[in-house]
């Protein structure tokens, strides 16, 4: 069974601070996807990384896929209250099946 561990589980920071969320596994994935989920809504895809060592930037968010394709990180620069939410990483496997991590709940205080 493939497992994805996310850390930290909870993060509460002040507006303007930087943060990094980690997603680790002992398994190799064909891709790593990051989602953001708001209360009462379904997850929304932020990015997909597929190549070991790949780095993608989405405005203030930087996503990295580990060289061995077993881990990933999400870095947010100068966090804003609008970044508040649940961040989920998901490892992609055969047939587009996803294995989700447990999530990181982020709160950014103004």
């Amino acid at each position: 069974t493939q497992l994805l561990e996310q850390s930290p589980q909870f993060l509460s920071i002040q507006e303007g601070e930087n943060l990094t969320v980690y997603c680790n596994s002992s398994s190799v994935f064909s891709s790593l996807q990051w989602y953001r989920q708001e209360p009462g809504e379904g997850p929304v895809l932020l990015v997909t990384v597929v190549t070991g060592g790949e780095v993608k930037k989405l405005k203030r968010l930087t996503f990295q896929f580990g060289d061995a394709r077993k881990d990933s990180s999400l870095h947010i620069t100068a966090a804003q209250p609008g970044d508040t939410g649940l961040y989920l990483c998901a490892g992609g496997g055969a047939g587009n099946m996803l294995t989700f991590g447990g999530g990181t709940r982020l709160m950014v205080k103004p």
Partner: protein
Amino acid sequence: EAGVAQSPRYKIIEKRQSVAFWCNPISGHATLYWYQQILGQGPKLLIQFQNNGVVDDSQLPKDRFSAERLKGVDSTLKIQPAKLEDSAVYLCASSLTPSSNQPQHFGDGTRLSIL
């Protein structure tokens, strides 16, 4: 483009009762997924359909859960009889194809509470 539609949004039942959820995927999406998301956890895949066929249902508790997608479009997920541990949000997602790395689009889910 219309998103993935799910109903009902909320459902409260007593244990041992039965319940059904409905999902209408994005038009043209051949692949449909049902996930269970327990409070404080990430979603767990229950079943994946490709058109009207089951691709994977290895994590579906088949003694009480069933799902169908008879015409290859909308789908229903049923629980009978429900247990307390089934309290969760049930999410439906769809993708254009089952190819790896295809984006999955999620509905807003059905929140199930078992009393």
